Each structure stands twice: as C-alpha cells, then as structure tokens.
C-alpha cells in the first residue's frame, strides 16, 4: 500500500526540506516562464538565450507538488501559516501570524502523567531526538467548513504513550495548552474557559493516524500553527487538534474539552468529521478547500474511514457526535 499517511518512519534528514517544495502557484509560474521562453525561442533564438538564466534548467522543480493519498495537492506555506484559528492570539485568523511572531518556545517541556506507570516531563529536544520524526500529509477539516492539506512532520502519539505505559485504569487522554496571558493575549478574554483543553479516547489516541506534530513543510512548527508541539487527529474537526501542548494526562473519565464546554449542543467530545450530522452554523456536508473556488463534498471521517471507522463500531454517531 502506498498511502502517504502510512509512510514508514524516516530519518529527519530525509524529510523533504521546504526549499524543495513547490506550491502549485510557483509551479505554474515556473511553467509559464518556460512556456514563454519556448515561444520566444521559436521566433528569435538569440533573444531566448539572453532572457533565460543560465541555471534555468536547474531551478526547475525536480519534485511534483506534494499530494495526499487522494491526489490533493498540499496548500501553500503562506496559506497554512496565515489563516489560523488560534484564539489564544486572536479570533481573527489573519492576525494570528503577526501576533505570534515573538512566541517563546524555548525552553519548552511537556508533562506526561496521570494514570501511567512512568510519568515523565519531556524537554522538547528529547521529544525531537527520542521519537522518530516522520512526514504525514493530512487533510485538515475545520468545523467552519473550510479545509487544507498540510504536510506535517511529527511522531505517533502511541509511541509516546507506550513509553509512559498507561495503567489499566486509563481510558482517556487529556491535553492542555500553555496558559500564559502575557504571551497569549486572547487568554485575557472572559468569554472562554481557558486554558484550552482537549481529549481523546485511549484507543483513538493509540491509532496510528494520531500524531504529535512538531513541524510542517520540513520546518519547525510555525508559531501560528501551534509551536512547538501540537496534536493532529485528521479524522476529527480541526479544533480537536490542540496546539502548543504543555500537558498530557491519562485519565479514567471523559475529560471536558474547550468547545464542548462552550456550546455542548454544537460540539461533542468526539467531533468526528461527519457530513451527515448538521451543524447550526456551517455546512458539514460540504467544504471549501482553501485555494479552490467551489465547494467539495465532505468525506466521512474526512476520508480516513478505512483506518478509523472500526473505532466506533456499534456506536451511534448521532448520539456520540
């Protein structure tokens, strides 16, 4: 099987560096230049020689644009880092990037504890060196009915959990974002129950698709996307993928989550991408892929049904939404 998200672990040195990525726009631009050059060459070879740079051939892409396993090209780094729901900085998606410029992620540590045999606080460097970082190209479906395709780098949450050994009493995993009103101006707002918290059932957390992402496009995680470490659960709405994590806790009861405490009738604990369960605000049966003009249908479990549908066997997805 040649599914990108099932990619075998690779050394960090083998992850495509950003310089080799090419957004579709750049590709078209490059293609346009070459086509133009060819036209010029056809009518006046001498002109063509002087306008095409000597290294023209070398600057052409050697790689096609990155794609997910369904053939969707990845979104540009520009779009990925300038359109962010990160309410700790701002509710304005375009304002997050500038506001997050000076976010301090060094030193950073993640406390892993609760119902485990080996509780441990990991320094960020240890997480990067201890766990094999791999590339995962995932679709991200926001509950607001827009989506992107993002080339994350990171490691499976299961590899971390195996190391701390959850006890038999552990049933859920709870995650918490850094609480720091100095760095996160949005956390001063009384309209939200800070800090951001999220949760997964243990089997969801152990699923191979669930990763802790530490970067994207071969770069360290940009601040606007939840640096230095965030969760990515691609079959759930984006808000489940909590950013800038400082605490991971194994617990025996279903933990409260940010959005389900704000509006429990709209956002459930599971929040699996489900085109059949309507939302009072956004269409969940269709979505707009950022960079595309028309809507496309939303796929059950965001297109990952084969890998995750069995987690919910015998459960009513309407009841446990």
């Amino acid at each position, binding site marked *: 099987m040649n599914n990108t998200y099932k990619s075998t672990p690779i050394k960090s040195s083998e992850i495509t560096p950003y310089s080799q990525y090419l957004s579709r726009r750049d590709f078209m631009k490059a293609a346009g230049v070459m086509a133009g050059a060819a036209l010029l060459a056809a009518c006046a070879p001498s002109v063509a020689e002087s306008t095409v740079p000597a290294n023209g051939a070398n600057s052409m892409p050697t790689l096609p644009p990155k794609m997910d396993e369904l053939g969707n090209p990845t*979104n540009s780094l520009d779009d990925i880092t300038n359109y962010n729901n990160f309410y700790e900085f701002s509710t304005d*998606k375009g304002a997050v990037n500038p506001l997050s410029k000076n976010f301090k992620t060094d030193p950073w540590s993640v406390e892993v504890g609760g119902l485990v045999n080996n509780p441990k606080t990991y320094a960020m460097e240890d997480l990067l060196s201890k766990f094999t970082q791999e590339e995962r190209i995932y679709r991200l479906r926001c509950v607001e009915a827009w989506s992107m395709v993002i080339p994350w780098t990171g490691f499976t949450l299961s590899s971390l959990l195996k190391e701390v050994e959850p006890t038999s009493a552990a049933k859920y995993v709870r995650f918490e974002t850094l609480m720091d009103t100095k760095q996160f101006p949005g956390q001063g707002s009384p*309209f939200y129950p800070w800090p951001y918290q999220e949760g997964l059932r243990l089997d969801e957390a152990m699923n191979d698709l669930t990763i802790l992402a530490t970067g994207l496009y071969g770069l360290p995680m940009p601040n606007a996307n939840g640096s230095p470490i965030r969760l990515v659960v691609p079959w759930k709405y984006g808000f489940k993928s909590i950013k800038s994590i400082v605490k991971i806790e194994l617990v025996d009861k279903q933990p409260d989550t940010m959005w389900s405490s*704000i509006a429990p009738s709209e956002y459930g604990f599971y929040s699996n991408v489900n085109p059949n369960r309507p*939302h*009072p*605000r956004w269409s969940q049966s269709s979505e707009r892929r950022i960079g595309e*003009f028309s809507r496309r249908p939303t796929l059950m479990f965001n297109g990952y049904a084969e890998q995750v549908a069995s987690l919910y066997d015998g459960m009513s997805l309407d009841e446990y939404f």
Partner: protein
Amino acid sequence: MKNFFKRYTPLQIAIHTYAWSKLVILIFQLFTHNLTANPIQALEQRTGRHALTLLVLSLLCTPLNNIFGWRELLKRRRALGLYAFMYATIHLIIFMDLDYGFAWSLLLQTVAEKPYIIYGLSTFLLLIPLAFTSFDIWKKRLGKNWKRLHQLIYFIAPLAAYHYILSKKGDLFRLQGDLIRPLIYALIIVILLIFRIPPVRRALASFRDRVLLQFKRTNPQPKADSH
C-alpha cells in the same frame, strides 16, 4: 467644484463616501489578494457587517436629531437605509452564488438546518418593501401607512443583530465564544431603540431644551444690528 459643495452638504458627502469606499476597499483587497486565504468567506462576513453598520447608522439619525436638533440627519436616513439594503443584497448574493454556487439542494439544506440563515433571510425579505417604498412618491401614496411600514425597522434591526450573533462561534446564553463584536452591535441597537420609547424621547427633548436655554443665557446672541 463650488457648485458641488453648494449642492451637497458635508453630511451627504460623508455618507456617500463612506458607503462606497467600503465597497471599493473590498474590491481592491480582493484583487490584491488581501482578503485572507478564504476570500469568499471574508467577502461574505464583511458585506454583512457593512450592512448592519449602515442599518445602525440609519437608526442613529432620529435620536441624534432629538438630542442635538440636527434636522438634516432626518433627510439622510433614506440614503443610509438604502446603502444598508445594497450591502445586504451583495451579502446574500455572495452567499448564494460565490459561496454555494447556487447549489439549490445545499442552499435549501442550510435554510432547513440553520436558524441563523432563517433570521438572515427574514431580515433581507423584510428590508425589501422598505427599500422599495423609500421614495417620496410612495411616501405620498401610502400616507399614514408609510410610517407604520417603516417602523418595521425596529424589528428588523434586532433580527439582523441576532443573525450576526448566531453566525459566530459561541453561545449567547452562556456568554461564551467569539461574541464581543456582535454583542456591541446588539447593545447599540438596543440603546437606539430605547431612545425611541416615548417617555425616554420626551425626557431627551426636554433635556435638550434645557441645555439650549442654558447655552443661550450664558452666550447671549449678538444683536442683529451689531455689525
């Protein structure tokens, strides 16, 4: 140029410039790729907000006249209201066309599923008769009923604000979520409607008269023959 300023008052120029500049800015940002990575949604949200702002401004005229006695404001309500209707129309067209590509099944689904769409659509439908009867000929033709019809705006404005609140991520009754901006609009609308309750209006008018009287006493008018 002199004629231009004779024909149009500063208030008129300000209103028309404001209303059209919002559209020009949007179009400019659209073509310079400055409308976020999701420009259709940005257009949708901002035209909606402009419509509501203009609606609030049109509601502001009467109380401002009551307080400051600036009668020209009353003449400008029509322009503000019509601009609000213009932005509401653009807002609806963007929603149906750019956002949903006139996919009727999806559109009908949103109407059936989403209360905020119903509130928004009702706002627009109720604005239609007001916009079309805003001209003098209709004012004459409808007589007393014209005023009654146009008082519908006291119902439409809160409806529009509620549409805005529901369209944001959060929960009004728990006061949780991204609600600050729509709540500010709602609060202003509530205050402007309170100003229209007869006892409040009379209190405002008598307050104004007292202030004017005080002003005249402390600043006696120069005599007509003093020049």
